[in-house]
């Protein structure tokens, strides 16, 4: 089975490779940088290679028996492959950007080690079809993100990193208890077995709640979201990674994996989760309108947009889930672009306070235009990708009849337009506060520009990702065998 090796390569090349990076770094920083990019690129190419078999409806499975039912098993179905492609492609761009960004700072070996391990753990989590490896990879991401948020080692930064770690690990432990009670009823951690076991009897509410706590804390959703804006002290490529490619998307992915693809969610939760997500979207959008730190604003924007993704998933019909999956893609591209632009601004002006910034349109035109296009995508303006995902989520909700909650999200979408323009206005327009500020390095600016271009292309060629998403949703909802 050649394809099983592809899965293993996608997961273990970055996971194991990351441990080599500090060693390589002792000899040559350039080789280390290239190696870390290649590891991530391998993941991306492997995931891409799995698309065709996933589209054909054949899930590639790898499984090894281990004692106590802790099997190591990986499955590459549509959802997993889609998610893996999104995460690894965005991560690859972020690594390229890091070459320029992180070269100014110390502890670079640690940086590349953690980032590549982070992505590797994400790939492992995405392909896992057993709850135990899934949990382990989940916790590896918690540890790496803790180290990366506190990367600059200042006292407040370490506190913030601790906060992020404590909140997410608290959630993860609650989720673990949920997993164990599933094991008690199903007799296995294997998702395929669990799916059969719960085909007839519904999931107990307590278990849903416990797992949901884990998911919401990882995906930074109300009331577990405040660690994410605080995590903005991390280096900008790390925040981009946390927001766009890896960390917060984990919760969303596991939600899709468990509550859409594996269990049928009890009817009550189809209302409760949209309400939570709606409150989260609204409160964080409101906070984004008041905050004055550029990275905190974008972070609150992520919290708000994650609400839309949960909304689409919780609606649970075909259109809503496809919308949510495309949302993961389009939001990932755009949000990475926003954070990387913020990184350029932060590095060149040495401030993150938007009330002190201004007039950067003149000195950083490429960054400004890229920022604007990424913002357009988050707002949901065609022809950018965000338009389609936003429409599909709303359409799914309306088809289900959730008009009131759709109204709340509509308000959230209004606020999105307003706070992004407020940000753009204060940072790029008006009087030039930093006439001496220049564009970032060529590599960094081209990464940002590439993300803006990809945001546009993801809209114009939306039919390709939509096809993959469509097939995987049909697999998830059991519409085709």
């Amino acid at each position: 089975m050649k394809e099983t090796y592809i899965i293993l390569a996608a997961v273990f090349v970055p996971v194991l490779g990351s441990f080599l990076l500090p060693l390589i770094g002792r000899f040559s920083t350039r080789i280390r940088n290239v190696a870390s990019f290649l590891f991530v690129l391998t993941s991306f190419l492997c995931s891409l290679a799995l698309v065709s078999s996933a589209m054909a409806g054949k899930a590639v499975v790898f499984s090894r028996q281990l004692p106590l039912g802790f099997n190591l098993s990986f499955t590459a179905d549509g959802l997993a492959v889609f998610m893996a492609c999104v995460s690894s492609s965005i991560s690859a761009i972020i690594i390229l950007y890091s070459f320029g960004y992180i070269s100014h700072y110390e502890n670079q070996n640690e940086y590349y080690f953690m980032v590549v391990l982070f992505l590797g753990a994400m790939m492992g989590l995405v392909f896992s079809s057993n709850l135990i490896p899934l949990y382990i990879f989940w916790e590896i991401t918690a540890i790496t993100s803790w180290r990366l948020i506190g990367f600059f080692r200042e006292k407040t930064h370490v506190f913030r990193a601790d906060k992020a770690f404590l909140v997410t690990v608290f959630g993860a432990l609650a989720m673990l208890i949920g997993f164990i009670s599933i094991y008690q009823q199903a007799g296995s951690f294997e998702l395929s077995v669990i799916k059969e076991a719960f085909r007839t009897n519904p999931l107990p509410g307590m278990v849903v709640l416990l797992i949901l706590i884990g998911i919401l804390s990882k995906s930074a959703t109300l009331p577990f979201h405040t660690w994410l804006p605080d995590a903005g002290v991390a280096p900008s490529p790390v925040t981009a990674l946390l927001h766009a490619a890896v960390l917060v998307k984990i919760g969303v992915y596991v939600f899709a994996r468990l509550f859409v693809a594996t269990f049928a969610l009890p009817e009550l939760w189809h209302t409760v989760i949209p309400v939570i997500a709606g409150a989260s979207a609204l409160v964080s959008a409101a906070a984004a309108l008041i905050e004055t730190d550029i990275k905190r604003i974008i972070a609150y924007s992520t919290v708000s947009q994650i609400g839309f993704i949960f909304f689409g998933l919780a609606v649970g019909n075909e259109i809503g889930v496809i919308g949510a999956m495309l949302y993961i893609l389009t939001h990932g591209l755009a949000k990475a672009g926003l954070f990387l632009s913020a990184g350029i601004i932060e590095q060149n002006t040495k401030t993150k306070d938007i009330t002190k910034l201004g007039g950067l349109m003149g000195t950083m035109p490429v960054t400004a235009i890229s920022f604007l296009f990424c913002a357009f995508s988050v707002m949901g303006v065609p022809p950018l990708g965000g338009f389609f995902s936003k429409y599909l989520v709303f359409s799914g909700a309306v088809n289900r009849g959730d008009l009131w909650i759709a109204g709340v999200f509509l308000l959230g979408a209004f606020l999105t337009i307003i706070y992004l323009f407020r940000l753009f206005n204060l940072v790029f327009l008006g009087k030039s506060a930093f006439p001496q500020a220049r564009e970032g390095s060529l590599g960094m600016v081209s990464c940002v520009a590439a993300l803006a271009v990809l945001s546009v292309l993801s809209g114009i060629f939306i039919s390709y990702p939509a096809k993959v998403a469509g097939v995987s949703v049909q697999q998830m909802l059991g519409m085709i065998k």
Partner: protein
Amino acid sequence: MTPSILLLLVLIPLISGIASIFMPKRASLVSLLATTLNLLISIMVFKQGLSYSVPWLGFGIDLSLRLYNFSAFIILSISAFSFLISLYSVVFMSGRHKSNQFFSYFLINIAFATGAILADNFIVMLFFWEGLLLTMFGMISTGTKEAFRTAIKAFIILGIADLCMMVGIALTAHLAGTLTISKINLPIHSLGGVAFILLIIGAISKSGAMPFHSWIPDAATDAPLPFMALVPAAFEKLVGIYFLTRICLDIFILDPKSWASPLLMIIGSITIILAVMMALIQKEYKRLLSYHAISQVGYMILGVGTAMPAGIIGGLFHMINNAMYKSCLFLTGGSVEKSAGTTDLGKLGGIGRKMPVTFACFIITAAAISGVPPFNGFFSKELVYDGALERGVVFYLAALVGSFFTAASFLKLGHAAFLGKISKENENVKEVHAAMLVPMIIIAVACIVFGVYNYLPISVIQSVLGEARLEGHNFWGFPANMTLVALSVIVLIGALLNHLFGVKKFGSGLKAVDHIHYAPGLSQIYAKAEKRFFDPYDIGLKIVGAIARIGWWCDKFIDWIYDNLVVRVTYIFSDGIRFAHTGNYSFYIVWSMVGMIAVLVFLIR
């Protein structure tokens, strides 16, 4: 003819728009060429019914375009305007900063507007419709230094309205079970009513009616003039009113007895009156025109909202008439700006003799907008009056009062700009380049033709409504109701007398309406309005700010729980536990015993 020719209508401007970014020197010629081609194609397909469809995203989202009598009419108008304004812009924009960007957005704007009109699938329509946001943002931003702020204002207002429409479309598609626009026909009640309102928000915001209007006057001063002549004057009305009519005639069934019809008429009447009152007191050529661009859309909404054949035909006829005279008026403004270097009415005056052709075009189009027979505006207004009167005297009076002030403000504008004494600075003003004059002359002549020979447009519009709705009536020719015509003429004479009174009292054309401006009661309201006290955008942002403040406090409270409450509880808890660790052996033995007993109890039970 193959249906795929419809794609060309969208692709030609789109591709040439993208190309012109990379050809800074030749952008204006590319735009002229592309708009000419589009005009030829739209003339070729005018009498045809074509539909084109290919699968796109699945779940009912197909790339389908449909050309039938209504959309062909709008497409032809769009192509004609874009050709004329392109011709005008070649000279007007030459030597300007960012002119290639302007042409690029201009062409893409044409592509999106064409696409929105042709689309027969809601998602395709929404795609192009919302895409107009980007091109509009781009075109405004190529203007003055302040233009970016205005562009943001316009984007926020229209973006929010478009989001409403997005949800409205999702709801409509859900109720109808299809996304194909031509297959949808829903009644307006319960959920259908919600969908109707959401769609209407999209349509009237695009056409620039109140309360979605307040960016237009700002854009008038900040954006490049061809933008004003193309978008708020022509395209927005064509696209917005086209869709409004589709909503009222095809997608939903607008019954005169339903609540929706009075709602539209009220929006229309309020827009007419308030906007024209603001137009009256403006002291800047383009800003004055921009308020008329808002006010005139009121007549269209009023007309369509009557749900009477006369009103709908009047509204649609007014749409095309307004697009003509309003864009020509803006073009005259551009000529004045180009020659005199200012559009401030206080600095202008007496240039009519120096620019005879521009002045002649101004007179014709100003007469048309004021509703002077035999120009086109007169006939469409009479039809709107006819429809409005059938539904209620109040609506008719609103429209009539609007006409009075329209005429008064154009008398003021013409007098202040073109007549009176010429100032020293304007001694050397010359008539503009022929390429700028030709579009104005063509439109002015068309205003006469559409008035005298109104069979031409009205017969096309009647075919849109269909024989069943018309019940054998024909609306072309001279208005049937002579009483209404007499009343309109009286109002016009009243406006003229009012102007002469004002000029005599205050001594200049610019101050001809000061007796209204500073009338007791009105002057305070005007003063506040001039300070943007009533700007719905500012009010809306204040409300949003308040909501945001509440949300922010919620967020800070949650954060306080993590940063303080949890930490404190943990400390209290661990302080309690600390008492257990005294370092005293006997104490630990007691603890161990308690533990063992607990284990035993657990096991035995």
